[in-house]
């Protein structure tokens, strides 16, 4: 552990990450609790019943879901406005894919992590993984997913919120809920992998620690984010 530490996240980014994480998990759990129709809820009736017991009633649960959601959206918006240049940089970084390298990474890394290097060899592929930038291809795809899903869920959420206040046509509301649920579900599928990588995966533990300290060890950066490491290694 004698290796040099490299700056990766500043305090603002660390704050917004954990704020986002808390809200996202809270909203996923309460949102799933709002679907009390057991024919629609993917886990059945026990979850909405449990949530309603915890919050006292369905109305309170809905109120919490709405206002935590609106607060989340407002804080993210303020963050983007305050750090406009950084946010644009983030979007540019995560939405820039280099097809050949990232596709190869996605296939090889998925096989390597689930089935191992031997399976990779049996499939006729080499075990070298293409070098990655500040984010690897998997992180980029997850970031794209959360950005798009977040945006769509804010829009559909607001449509549902204002429905009984000003909307005379119920059709957009009905579709909003369907789309809201679809986005939350797909994002949750991605979130499972994200949480595994952060909290359980051995290889990614330095990345998890960097979400508190902001620093990663030099050899980790070199091994996992080689292109980014090459960029920053000579900066002070």
């Amino acid at each position: 552990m004698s290796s040099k530490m490299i700056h990766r996240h500043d305090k603002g980014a660390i704050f917004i990450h954990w704020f986002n994480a808390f809200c996202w998990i809270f909203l996923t759990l309460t949102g799933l609790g709002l679907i009390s129709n057991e024919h629609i809820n993917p886990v059945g009736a026990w979850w909405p019943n449990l949530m309603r017991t915890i919050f006292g009633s369905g109305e309170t649960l809905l109120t919490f879901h709405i206002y935590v959601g609106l607060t989340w959206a407002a804080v993210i918006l303020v963050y983007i406005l305050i750090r406009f240049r950084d946010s644009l940089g983030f979007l540019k970084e995560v939405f820039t894919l280099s097809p050949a390298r990232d596709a190869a990474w996605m296939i090889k890394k998925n096989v390597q992590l689930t089935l191992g290097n031997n399976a990779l060899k049996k499939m006729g592929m080499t075990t070298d993984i293409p070098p990655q930038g500040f984010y690897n291809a998997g992180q980029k795809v997850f970031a794209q997913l959360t950005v798009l899903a977040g945006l769509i869920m804010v829009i559909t959420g607001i449509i549902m919120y204002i429905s009984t206040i000003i909307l005379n046509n119920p059709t957009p509301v009905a579709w909003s809920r369907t789309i809201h649920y679809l986005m939350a579900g797909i994002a949750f599928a991605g979130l499972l992998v994200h949480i595994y990588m952060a909290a359980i995966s051995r290889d990614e533990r330095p990345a998890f620690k960097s979400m508190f300290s902001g620093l990663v060890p030099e050899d980790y950066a070199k091994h996992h984010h080689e292109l980014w490491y090459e960029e920053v290694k000579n900066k002070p």
Partner: protein
Amino acid sequence: MKKKYCMVIDSSVCIDCKACMVSCKVQHNIPRGYWRNWIKHTEPDFSMGKYTFVHFQPGGCMQCDEPSCVYACPSGATYKDEETGIIHVNEDLCIGCGNCVTACPYGARYRHPVKRVPDKCDFCSDRLNMGLLPACVDTCPTKARTFGDMNDPDSDVARLLRDRETVRVVSRPVDTKPNMFYLAETMPADWPGSVEYPAAHQAMTGFVNPLVKIAVGLSGLGVAAMFLKQLFTSDETSDHEKKEEV
């Protein structure tokens, strides 16, 4: 014992005075152009000369045992009260998606133009709590509408259901098991629509739900595979990682 409120209607004595509709409108302050209950009628066939007739049929929400409106509601805002059998709308839980309005084959619901949530007959629950009959039953001059608890063997409705032959007006092909019974026979009987769920609801149950389950399932499977691999390959860890764990 749990109550099961229902209505038994003798449509042959209905004179189409619409007092039930008016008293309901007044009782619940129903906005102009909307109604919670109705009187349907047959089309007169004037070729029958002096035998020409019209049959009137009072109705309202039938508080079905297999309520398509409840099945269409995702949030549980529309629910059947297990203690009374009455189907209510919890307006604070409703997001006004209109699924239930479309799903009711009897057209017993409308979206309230000001509150923007569905409104429907609840057998005048407020009046029942005060020991009064529903407004439409109370006001009917020919006593066409009989209201009561069919689980109570001494109630008027239970007696009528026991002693007299009754029919129901049902939707086809899905029978929602309505709790509104008509003595002997009634007309018209072919007016209910079919049970139709809105496209957004069909997309949710038919497409989105399976897709989300598959996505989360695959993702969970991947995570499980990675976790197992990590468990069984601990020997391969590099020196660096071993040190870190200490």
